[in-house]
C-alpha cells in the first residue's frame, strides 16, 4: 500500500467539471428526465386503463379527417403533424451547430424555421381539437365506438385531450423559449458572451418535445 501513487485527482470536490458539461446543460438534462417521468406516468396510466378495457376505439376510425379534404383519410393529418415536428427538430439541431461555429446568421435562420415549425404544429393541433370537439368529443364525452362496435367509455377522450394537451403545452412553451433565444441572438447577447451554449439548452428542451410526440403519436394514433 505504500507505493507511490500519482497525485489523485479529486473530481467531485469542486472546481472541476467531472461530466465536462456546463451546469445549466446538466440540470436541463435532469429536468427533462423528471419531465419524462411525468409523461411516462400519464402514458402508463393510459396503458393500464386501456389494458383493463375489453375494447377501445380504433384510431384509424377516429383520426381520419384532413382540413379541406374531408374525412376518410386515416392517419394523413397526424402524419403531417409528425413530419412538421421532426423537421423542426432538425432545424433546431442545425441552429445549435451553427451556434458552435459562432455563425450568427445561420443561428437566426434556423431558429426562425424552428419557431415556424412549432407554430405550424400548434395550429394543426388546434384544428384537430376543434374538429374533434365538433364531432362531440371532449373531456367526459366520447362519440366514437370501440373497434368491435360496442359503446366506448369516456376514457379514450379523457386521456387523449389530457395527454395531447399537456404535450401541446410543452410545444407552446418551447416556442416561447425559442422566441426568447431568437431575440437574445438578434441582440448579440451570445456574441458578447462568446458562446451560444444557451441555444443548446433550448435545443435539448425542443428535442424532448419531439421525443414525447414519438410516444404520444404511437400509442394514440397507431396502435
Amino acid at each position, binding site marked *: 500500500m505504500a507505493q507511490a501513487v500519482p497525485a489523485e485527482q479529486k473530481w467531485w470536490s469542486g472546481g472541476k467539471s467531472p461530466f465536462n458539461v456546463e451546469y445549466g446543460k446538466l440540470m436541463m438534462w435532469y429536468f427533462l428526465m423528471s419531465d419524462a417521468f411525468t409523461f411516462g406516468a400519464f402514458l402508463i396510466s393510459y396503458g393500464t386503463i386501456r389494458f383493463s378495457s*375489453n375494447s377501445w376505439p380504433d384510431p384509424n376510425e377516429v383520426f381520419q379527417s384532413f382540413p379541406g379534404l374531408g374525412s376518410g383519410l386515416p392517419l394523413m393529418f397526424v402524419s403531417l403533424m409528425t413530419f412538421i415536428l421532426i423537421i423542426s427538430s432538425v432545424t433546431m439541431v442545425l441552429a445549435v451547430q451553427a451556434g458552435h461555429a459562432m455563425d450568427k446568421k445561420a443561428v437566426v435562420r434556423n431558429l426562425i424555421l424552428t419557431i415556424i415549425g412549432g407554430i405550424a404544429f400548434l395550429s394543426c393541433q388546434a384544428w384537430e381539437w376543434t374538429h374533434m370537439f365538433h364531432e362531440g368529443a371532449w373531456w367526459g364525452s366520447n362519440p366514437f365506438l370501440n373497434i368491435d362496435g360496442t359503446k366506448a367509455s369516456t376514457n379514450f377522450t379523457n386521456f387523449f385531450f389530457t395527454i395531447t394537451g399537456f404535450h401541446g403545452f410543452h410545444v407552446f412553451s418551447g416556442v416561447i423559449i425559442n422566441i426568447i433565444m431568437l431575440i437574445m441572438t438578434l441582440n448579440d447577447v451570445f456574441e458578447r458572451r462568446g458562446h451560444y451554449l444557451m441555444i443548446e439548452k433550448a435545443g435539448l428542451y425542443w428535442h424532448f418535445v419531439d421525443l414525447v410526440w414519438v410516444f404520444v403519436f404511437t400509442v394514440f394514433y397507431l396502435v
Partner: protein
Amino acid sequence: MDNLHELQEVTHHHEFDREASRKEVMRVTVILSVITLIELALGFWLMYIDGEFFRLLIKGVICVLMLAKAFYIVAYFMHLKHELRNMIMTIVVPLLLFVWFLVAFLYDGNSYKNLKNTYDPYHYEQSKTKAEKPAHGAGETKDAKKEGSVE
C-alpha cells in the same frame, strides 16, 4: 474511470467539424423519416388485419420502431451519445424504472379486466353489446346536449 483522460475543461473550444455533424444530422433525419413512414404504413395496415395475434404482433413491431426513433433523437439530436459515459449513465439508469412500471401496471390493468369480466357479468354483457354508430359530425347537431352532459 478509464475515460478521465478524455476530460477537458468545458470552456475549452474542442475542435468541431461542422461538415461532419451536418452529415450526421442529415443521416439521422433520413432514418427518422423512413422509420416514421414504416410506422404509418403498419398503422394503416392494421385496418385490414383481423387476426388477434397478428394485430398484436404488428403493434409490437410499431412499439419497437418507436423505441428506435427515441434512441436516434436522444443519441444524436440531443447529442447524448457524445457525452461522457458517466453522465449518460446518470440519465439512462434511472429511466430503467420504466421497465418495471410498464410490466407492473399493464399486467395489473389486464388482471383488472379479467377480474371484472369474471365477477361482474353485467359489465361483461354491457361491454359486448353492439351500439348504434353515430354519423360523422353528429355532435354538431346536438349542441344543447353537449353542454355539461357527462353521462
